[in-house]
């Protein structure tokens, strides 16, 4: 056990292992989880925080789909001040490095929220959610290389921790956006956010979700995500945090072999709250079985 080295780095931030949870999928740890178990995770990524509080989208907010779900929550959250005051201390108490996910509705908001969190401190990295499909913008920051570049560059000037850009799969060529983020100084990329999707209730002849469209996640999107991580890893040097339907260690290892540095369990937290720890233990077992000493040596090693 002790000879296995699972540690990874994103910029200057160090994590004892590559397993984290995707934003918006993990909550109320203090009430429900065995904290001794949660402490084994490499990092925790709380739900995206916006500058002012947001009440989220009207119901219906979720619908089950084949091997996955469509959601349009609309980033219901207490806002930066509320989060820093009410939630951040609880997350910090767990003792696992935090990746704070933030979203601004304008350049100015991204700037202000980055400043607020930098002043608050006490976390390992800042993830910029450039890709939420459910907040009513006509296009996403992560659909425009120039906007991606501009916002990453701006936040990099403010933040004193590594900055990670979370990108959207709803683009023609994700590698163009990924390179824009890298050129702007991003320390890492989170790939991928949800695919925009729609489910129609044929009896009512209307969309099931209150927001009309939503984001598709879960095992249904995993092969799409593995490909996007692979394609991106060919074009950038910065580390990738991969997410997209990870349920088991086998799933996570696919992403690592495709070039990911870290892996995040997202939607599967809702179905199997033990999934992140199952993934971690399964990666350890795999490394023992294959006599692999460091997780780094697996990264991007998929054969053609």
């Amino acid at each position, binding site marked *: 056990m002790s000879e296995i080295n699972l540690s990874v780095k994103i910029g200057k931030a160090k994590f004892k292992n590559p397993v984290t949870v995707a934003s918006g999928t993990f909550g109320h740890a203090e009430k429900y989880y065995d904290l001794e178990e949660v402490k084994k995770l490499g990092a925790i990524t709380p739900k995206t925080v916006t500058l002012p509080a947001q009440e989220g989208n009207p119901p219906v907010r*979720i619908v089950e789909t084949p*091997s996955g779900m469509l959601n349009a929550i609309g980033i219901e959250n207490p806002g930066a001040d509320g989060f820093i005051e009410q939630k951040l201390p609880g997350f910090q108490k767990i003792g696992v490095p935090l990746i704070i996910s933030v979203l601004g509705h304008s350049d100015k908001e991204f700037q202000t929220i980055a400043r607020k969190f930098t002043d608050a401190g006490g976390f390992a990295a800042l993830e910029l959610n450039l890709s939420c499909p459910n907040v009513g913008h006509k296009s996403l920051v992560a659909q425009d290389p120039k906007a991606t570049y501009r916002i990453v560059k701006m936040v990099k000037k403010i933040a004193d921790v590594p900055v990670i850009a979370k990108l959207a799969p709803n683009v023609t060529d994700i590698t163009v956006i990924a390179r824009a983020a890298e050129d702007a100084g991003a320390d890492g990329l989170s790939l991928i956010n949800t695919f925009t999707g729609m489910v129609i209730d044929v009896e009512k002849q209307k969309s099931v979700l209150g927001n009309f469209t939503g984001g598709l996640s879960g095992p249904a999107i995993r092969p799409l995500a593995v490909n996007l991580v692979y394609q991106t890893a060919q074009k950038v040097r910065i580390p990738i945090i991969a997410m997209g339907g990870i349920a088991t260690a086998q799933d996570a290892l696919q992403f690592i072999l495709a070039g990911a540095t870290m892996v995040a369990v997202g939607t599967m937290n*809702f179905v199997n709250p033990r999934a992140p720890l199952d993934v971690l233990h399964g990666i350890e077992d795999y490394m023992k079985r294959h006599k692999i000493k460091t997780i780094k040596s697996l990264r991007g090693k998929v054969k053609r």
Partner: protein
Amino acid sequence: MAKLQNIFKVASNEKLCPKFYRLCIDAKPLKGKIKPGQFVHIRTNSGYEPFFRRPFSVYRDKRYIEVFYEAVGPGTTIMSQMKKGDDIDVLGPVGTPFDLPDKNIKQVVMIAGGIGIAPFMVLSDVLKKRKLEMIVLYGGRTRGHVYPMKEFKENGCKVHVATDDGSVGTHGRVSELFDKINLDPETTMVYTCGPTPMMAAVQKFARKHKLKGQAACEEIMACALGACLGCSIRTTNGFKTVCYDGPVFDLQEIIFD
């Protein structure tokens, strides 16, 4: 602290009436820990179809943890085929329970429609030790949807039934039974669980007569832990999650569409 997520064994799974089933789960770590109104979140299969877990009010917390369900969709259909000795993946108990009645309450009225009767069995199990009058007003679509009320009667509840087709009890909606309620706001407490139109009717009635009340809500749910915020409903205090802030809410707090 009991573990949140456990693999237990099915102790029995029986059809109680044409539409409803009772699943008994051998869940020793949870025994005696259920507060009325709380629920368990059950994974019906080890794959991804259907994808979500399914939430069920705990029906009884006795020798086994019991859930009472109707086989209506893909998840409950799989559940209806479970057999004694099968593994079952159970999350919970979770959720905010009913407030038990204050000392001055003399009459407890449980108003349920269809499968919404489930949380009231465990509530009556808890309340039967107190000197209260317990009344159950129960509405179902047809004879096949009327749960045998024997166990409620054994707990000392007075039971009144209405069916949409008149095949059992009063012909009509459960609201036809509201005249059974003693209208003293100081001594009466109303609990309700069932279809939205029924709970909306109970809310209106309780508001008119200034009766205190609570409602147990149901929504499509993903996590059941207050994480995904997918099951939010409108309340007078903004969106609230059914799984974490609820499923039990003050009756007048809910905004029924």
